[in-house]
């Protein structure tokens, strides 16, 4: 533990919810404009969460809150390890743990819609995990370390040797954000075939916790995008921030231009991306670059 680790963790804990909330608001605003609506105020996600907390509290059983809370805590834990400059593989494994807790929350309700959502969530986990791990291996091969701090400050921009992995990562980002065309597990808008999938039975504070943990997760994922550009200079950091935001914008555009695809497409396409963009890029890093 160094001073910068502590600062990183503190900044993450303080700023991530705010940034995540703003991004979510911007997302809704841009989406609305793309659909020629005015859209809610940018702070709407914050109002939503506050309202959820104030509502009458109900739950379908005694354990669902516990699982959602665990998911929340481990999402934050993963983010803390990342922003403390820690090991990227631990970050991936910890966020898998968080995701598993979320799935268990849905399963525990024993509700048809929640269970379909839960199954689809682990299906998506299976789809994106290879690409995610390959990205982290790519960072190691490109910059010689699995430590986020070393990659952040090390010389050389990881983007060029990892170009294939970068696009692969952008691809699975859509799944991670649970956005269309891959919003299989929660379906972004209610009143679809699986209602709200995974989150159907969450309400009140529990749903609020889920929303906030999504904000944290968004910041963590955009942090990885940022890492592709960092080479220890101020300019690279500014560029990284711009591109992190642009990739978020890209996800919004994709979200609005595609309908949800059949479930088969998710695994096939993301494994194909991992196999082609990911493995070939790794092979180049191993043997050529």
């Amino acid at each position, binding site marked *: 533990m160094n001073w910068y680790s502590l600062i990183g963790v503190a900044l993450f804990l303080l700023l991530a919810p705010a940034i995540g909330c703003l991004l979510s608001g911007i997302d809704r605003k841009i989406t609305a404009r793309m659909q020629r609506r005015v859209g809610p105020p940018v702070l709407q996600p914050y109002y939503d969460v506050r309202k959820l907390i104030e509502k009458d*509290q109900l739950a379908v059983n005694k354990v669902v809150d*516990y699982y959602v809370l665990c998911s929340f805590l481990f999402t934050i834990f993963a983010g803390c390890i990342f922003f403390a400059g820690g090991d990227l*593989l631990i970050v991936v494994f*910890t966020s898998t743990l968080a995701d598993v807790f979320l799935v268990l929350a849905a399963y525990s309700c024993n*509700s*048809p819609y929640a269970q379909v959502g839960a199954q689809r969530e682990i299906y998506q986990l299976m789809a994106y995990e290879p690409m995610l*791990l*390959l990205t982290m291996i790519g960072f190691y091969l490109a910059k010689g370390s*699995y430590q986020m701090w070393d990659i952040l400050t090390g010389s050389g921009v990881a983007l060029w040797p990892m170009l294939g992995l970068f696009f692969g990562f952008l691809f699975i980002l859509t799944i991670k954000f649970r956005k269309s065309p891959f919003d299989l597990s929660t379906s972004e808008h209610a009143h679809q075939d699986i209602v709200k999938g995974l989150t159907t039975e969450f309400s*009140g504070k529990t749903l609020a916790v889920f929303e906030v943990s999504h904000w944290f997760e968004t910041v963590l994922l955009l942090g990885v995008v940022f890492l592709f550009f960092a080479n220890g200079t101020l300019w690279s950091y500014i560029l990284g921030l711009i591109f992190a935001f642009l990739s978020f914008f890209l996800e919004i555009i994709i979200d609005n231009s595609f309908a949800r695809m059949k479930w088969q497409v998710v695994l096939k396409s993301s494994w194909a991306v991992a196999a082609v963009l990911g493995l070939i890029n790794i092979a180049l890093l191993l043997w050529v670059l």
Partner: protein
Amino acid sequence: MSPIAFLLLFPLVIAILLLLIRSDRVRAPLVYVSATAIIIASVYTVCRYLNDGTTMFDFSWEPLGTLMFAVEVILCITVICLGYKYKKWAAPVLAVIQTAIGTWFELTQAGGLTADHNLYIDELSMIMVLIIGIIGSLITVYAVGYMKDFQAHDKSKDRRPWFFFVMYVFLSAMFGIVLSNNLMWMFFFWEITTFCSFFLIGYTRTDEAIHNAFLQLKLNIIGGIAFIVAIAVFVCDQHVVEMDKLLECGLSGIDVVLPVALLCLAGIVKAAQMPFQSWLLGAMVAPTPTSALLHSSTMVKAGVFLLLKLAPLLGKDIVGYAVMTVGALTFLLASMAAVSQSNAKRVLAYSTIANLGLIVACAGVGTYEAVWAGILLMIFHAITKSLMFLSVGTAEHHIGSRNIEDMDGLFERMPRLAAIMIIGIAGMFLIPFGMLISKWAALTTFVESENLVLIACLIFGSAVTSFYWTKWLGKLVGVVAHCENVEKTVHKDEWAVLDILTVLVIAVCFGFPLLSEYIVSPYLIHVFGNPPEAFLAIFGTEYVWILLAMLALLIILPIALLNKSKKPQSSIYMAGLNNGDNQSYTGSMGATVNVTLRNWYMESWFSNDRMDKIGVVMTVLVIVVTFALVLAGVTL
């Protein structure tokens, strides 16, 4: 008496006693006492020799060789008789071939051949002694209560004395494998474990059991033949018959590629790697303690033990590449096959095959870090998998099914067992538990060794692994209203064993830094020299603290929060009016619709037939090409 002799002989004596005793009242205490004695003896043995590193024992007794030979011939004759009785010919024919080679070797080559040291103990065998001694003994304790229920269900002739006899002979033979330095001895014990599994799998004598027992025998004798041919080739070339000399020869550059390749083949068969995986799946017909024993502490562990032992000779040569490729492909394809299984024992079986594949791949890579990961995987797998099998066995006796689909709401029906199973499953694939830590180590090693095939198999395989474990976990945690608690009749000894194993699963996660420091690392330093810098950087102390913090969090959170919610309860959302029991709803036209929830198996993609077929074709190809190259004398 030396503790080594005690470990080898004591289970044998108990086995004979158990064969003679027919009364439940005597058997139970005898098993409890002797299991405790074996556990204490194993721990004592490790403590006694830990500081000495490798200790060799002379232990020669002239008639012993003849005695072993006689036992092998008797077993061969038994197989022929049984083969005749059940009209199964492949296994007896193979047994005859193997015995013929053995006899030829014994008569023409072995004359005047004496081993300087017949037995030895080093840190790797100490780990095996602990696994066999502790886990194996605990399983026999569990078997006491389980077999009582089994007999009550089964109503056939009570052959439990035979069952316990074979189990204890098995333990003795396993100790023999890991402590023998003389390859002939090791081969003898190797064969004994094959025959013990044969008898255990065929225990119920149903058609299926007999078929699968012979399948096991057939495949494992192929491994046995590879083993005896390996010994014959090695002895003819070098005129020594010891494991340590074999390793010495290999490391000093003398050509022992063929015997090593053959021994690896024997290890691959025993570790149920593709293309030989079918025997382990077939072994599922046996009573649960048998499966637990075969999967966790004995039999398959003998296979990976041999491969890990040979690891210094593998690495970047033809045999090394073959072993790692077979292991990695098995990991990937067996993990995929597990997705399509709804039978809990078959899921566990495929998961065993997969995890052993990973250990085999680590052995094939044959570097300090790889073998570190392999040994830790072996330890964690032994504990976690025995826990999983035994809890599935208990569930089966109380809910009447071993199908995961029938485990709906186990959390309500058998809360304590469900909690144990949840810990077991989490232990198989989630951070911060041991299996994941060793998988992580394996991943970094595969990256270090620049092997793209291994990296690909591992990352896709572990993604699939998360899928099938999580969906099982989901079935367990579902809260179904109005369930009756059915776990009150579980035997006390079953609970005791399950509890001990659960504590062990968690304890080894806390204790793995110590385990690594005091047993695994000394062995690796002794074999490979000092660890590489990169390895220390990744698995340095800092991360151990993070992992321990997570583990503590995972223990504290449920104690503090689980089931503490005081929120008013509401009913779940359905496609109509919930009838209030969360089990049915009133749909359109007033019809009552019952809700059933089923898991997702994706058979069109991951059917086990398909995976088995792909796996067999690919691995047979790898093995055939390897032997062709080795025989042609090609080297890298």
